[in-house]
């Protein structure tokens, strides 16, 4: 019997788990993928929005500003990459400057500090690479960038350190009312819990509809991105948004916390909740629109393209197009809390979402705070960023930190093994990639893939043909001739 079960180990689920792990509660997180951070949380802009976008008075506005305010301290507590680089909303038409002012006023209403309108001259002085057509910009110094994997994984690891159980690769099939709360039926047995939290991302409607009569429908809204080599990461120093024009919402150009350049996303409503493929049209759109903000982004320096799905609620309880996060106890299911429709600015809001949901749980369960809560977490050592003295020290402790596996990002065997052995550790090569950046560089794992597969197989004590990229079906190798005959091992 659990006090709380959270369905979904994305950034929201993990933030809630971490927040609740400070209390005397028995908690489990159920994740359908083999690893955490596999849905929307892994494919997004990695932006901490300042908070001027959302309509004042909405939950989005409140949680975004709060989340943004908390993120820096959290990044220090939990040791994940974060940089307050500031953001700019570019305006390409004199006639539209009033819209920029409107955006500024909205931000001020939401409580965003230090917003300023810059004229072209001021804009050029802080961001020289912007295109000729940019006439003005809204500057938000509190805008920041964050590593979405780093954030999600740090939250999960810290939650696990404080006793939260993570069950990965488990599918929820049905939910029923139980004597005290809910019975969660999965493909791997049943779980009983007092409070059930639905943080299932684009699948949150399916989970919701298992228990509530007020039907929810989520439509995935796909966004495609292009990621560029670190060689051009310095092209911009702020996150550049575009003021929405007649042509649409516009796309962003931003540095990432790891020094790459990222452009995107497109926005297309689709049917398939697993539809994370990129398209020729999407890639073209990103390139064309990005060129408006920053001309001359060298196309040759693209190292990968990817797509993510935003969980957009189109219907709940008869209401259509909910333009807000839906975080509440379902009316006809006490103790069942939806955390749904967490589209942008979901990542920015995550720390606040965790706290907000914990507040809802407090009211229901009234738990005691733990005496021994571990509030900090140390990340995996990073040889690429370490000083020579730090490198010496790490290698002295474990010589595996001197064995470079991924040459592009300079990731060592020591870091990879560390990523596998820590709480909620990596079990797939994508898991290794998100925790250490091995395979994230310009050769896209061409060099390190065989080595990472070998290390994973060794650490998990399985044959290399058992190693997966991410999903259950994502095998790399067939069984070898000799392996099949069972003759290779003496």
């Amino acid at each position, binding site marked *: 019997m659990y006090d709380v079960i959270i369905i979904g180990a994305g950034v929201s689920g993990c933030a809630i788990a971490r927040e609740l792990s400070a209390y005397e509660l028995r908690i489990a997180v159920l994740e359908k993928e083999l690893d955490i951070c596999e849905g929307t949380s892994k494919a997004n802009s990695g932006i901490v929005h300042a908070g001027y976008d959302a309509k004042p008075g909405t939950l989005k506005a409140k949680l975004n500003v709060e989340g943004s305010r908390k993120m820096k301290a959290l990044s220090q507590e939990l040791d994940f990459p974060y940089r307050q680089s500031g953001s700019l909303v570019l305006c390409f038409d004199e006639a539209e400057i009033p819209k920029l002012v409107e955006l500024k006023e909205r931000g001020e209403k939401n409580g965003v500090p230090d917003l300023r309108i810059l004229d072209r001259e001021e804009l050029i002085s802080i961001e020289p690479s912007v295109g000729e057509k940019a006439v003005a910009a809204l500057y938000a110094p509190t805008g920041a960038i964050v590593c979405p994997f780093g954030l999600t994984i740090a939250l999960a690891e810290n939650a696990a350190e404080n006793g939260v159980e993570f069950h990965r690769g488990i599918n929820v099939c049905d939910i029923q009312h139980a004597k005290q709360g809910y019975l969660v039926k999965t493909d791997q047995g049943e779980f009983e819990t007092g409070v059930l939290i639905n943080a299932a991302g684009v699948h949150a409607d399916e989970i919701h509809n298992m228990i509530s009569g007020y039907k929810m429908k989520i439509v995935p809204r796909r966004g495609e991105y292009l990621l560029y080599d670190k060689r051009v990461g310095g092209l911009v120093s702020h996150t550049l948004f575009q003021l929405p024009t007649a042509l649409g919402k516009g796309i962003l150009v931003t540095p990432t916390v790891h020094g790459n350049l990222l452009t995107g996303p497109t926005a297309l409503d689709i049917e398939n909740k697993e539809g994370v493929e*990129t398209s020729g049209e999407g890639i073209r759109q990103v390139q064309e629109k990005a060129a408006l903000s920053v001309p001359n982004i060298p196309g*040759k320096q*693209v190292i990968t393209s990817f797509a993510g799905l935003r969980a957009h609620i189109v219907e709940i309880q008869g209401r259509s197009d909910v333009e807000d996060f839906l975080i509440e106890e379902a009316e006809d299911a006490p103790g069942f809390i939806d955390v749904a429709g967490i589209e942008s600015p979901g990542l920015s809001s995550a720390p606040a979402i965790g706290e907000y949901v914990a507040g809802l749980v407090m009211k229901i369960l009234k738990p005691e705070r733990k005496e021994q809560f571990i509030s900090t977490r140390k990340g995996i050592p990073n040889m690429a960023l370490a000083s020579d003295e730090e490198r010496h020290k790490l290698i002295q402790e474990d010589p595996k930190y001197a064995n470079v596996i991924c040459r592009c990002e*300079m990731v060592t065997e020591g870091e990879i093994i560390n990523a596998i052995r820590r709480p909620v550790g990596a079990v797939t090569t994508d898991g290794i990639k998100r925790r250490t950046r091995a395979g994230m560089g310009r050769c896209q794992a061409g060099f390190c893939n065989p080595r990472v597969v070998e290390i994973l197989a060794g650490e998990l004590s399985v044959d290399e043909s058992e190693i997966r*990229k991410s*999903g259950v079906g994502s095998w790399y*190798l067939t069984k070898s001739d000799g392996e099949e005959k069972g*003759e290779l091992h003496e």
Partner: protein
Amino acid sequence: MNKKRDLVIIGGGPAGMAAALAAYEKGIHDILILERDSELGGILNQCIHTGFGLHTFKEELTGPEYAGRYIDMINEKGIPSLLRTMVTDIKSGDPCVVTAMNKDMGLFQIEAQAVVLAMGCRERSRGAMNIPGYRPAGIYSAGTAQRYVNIEGRMPGKEVVILGSGDIGLIMARRMTLQGAKVKLVAEIMPYSGGLRRNIVQCLDDYHIPLKLSHTVTCIHGKDRVEGVTVSKVDEALNPIPGSEEYVSCDTILLSCGLIPENELTLEAGARMDDVTQGPVVNEHLETTQRGIFACGNVLHVHDLVDNVSKEAAKAGEFAAEYIHNKYSSWGEAVRPPIPEKTKCTLPEDRDMESQLICIGCPMGCLITAKKKEDGSLDITGNTCPKGEAYARSEMTAPVRMVTSFVYLQGGKDKVVPVKTAGEIPKEKIAACMEEVRNTIVKAPVKTGDILIANVADTGIDVIATGNADKGV
């Protein structure tokens, strides 16, 4: 270990070894080679096919054999190397300072009078080509697949589509086929192949693998693992032609779409780069704009033949030696190394497969016409050397091929040992030969030249090792 060296060489592949040997001949004996892999030889170790050494050794060798000859020479001279060692930084100066690390020594610095860069190149990735679709497992660069198959003895898939017809792609089409995979097609966006003509014959034609010129992959299907690709025809501007899409099911995509010099260290050392070669700018002495740092091989520009790499690297070694002796001060002017014209290999479209042959005797790939005369003898034209005539004669009567592969190793440091047939075997015996090779497991140690299967498939030809395999610990 001595932390002061006359010459430090970054990379122990063909370029690094040739540079070391040439510098040694010029009187520089205090040399150290730094290599990140577990043995010298570089990428040659996974190139277990033949086709190397025609210029350097006047005979056709496999990659491991070619590397082996250089490794033997390095050992004879007693030139030391540090393996499993990654260089993290190079600073030019007098002396240059090279920072590196490995498990035994940790992080360390070496002062060197001169440095030769010989890090080789890497393959273009899928992302760099912007192929739309999902990002499943099963997309490999041809070289990664080659490593899996030839070094690890593992198969990265069963049904394969290859994008790009560079030589590595063609070679891998044959390798995957010999190891039991089905290669569905090779798609090449250009109207000509980027590989050698003889490789089209002996890697594709021999195994009835279609080569689709002016075609490219326009979508990758499958969320977890590759399930198929959309292949489209392209127009003259290389844009996909709507309506020409064709779905091909497969579980694996190999990319053979070009090589890029690997210049991370060169850039960090501050050397000026050449946009055309994608390697560093050098003077007539192959010295980069950073004093005392020389460059050669695929790090300087991508070469077509390893023999040319060795030749260029030997020069770099000599220049580095000269620099150490004299410390000349004037850099002179930039000289771009001669870049071989990119192979644009086309085959006559209306080629009569019966009588018009492509010679596989050397990289030239001469088009030879062989016609049976009334008296039963052959009329052979188009060959440019006696080898061509001999090839045509045998091809018309009893075609033969060399077979290269690996056999599994038991109790070895490595998982497999590369092998070849000691001579050519009848083409129709290839399948039977591979059946025996794939079913063979040998015990380490094995030495180059050891007979591992006698009289394979009753051909009278032995299968011999083309590399050494030590006992494992």
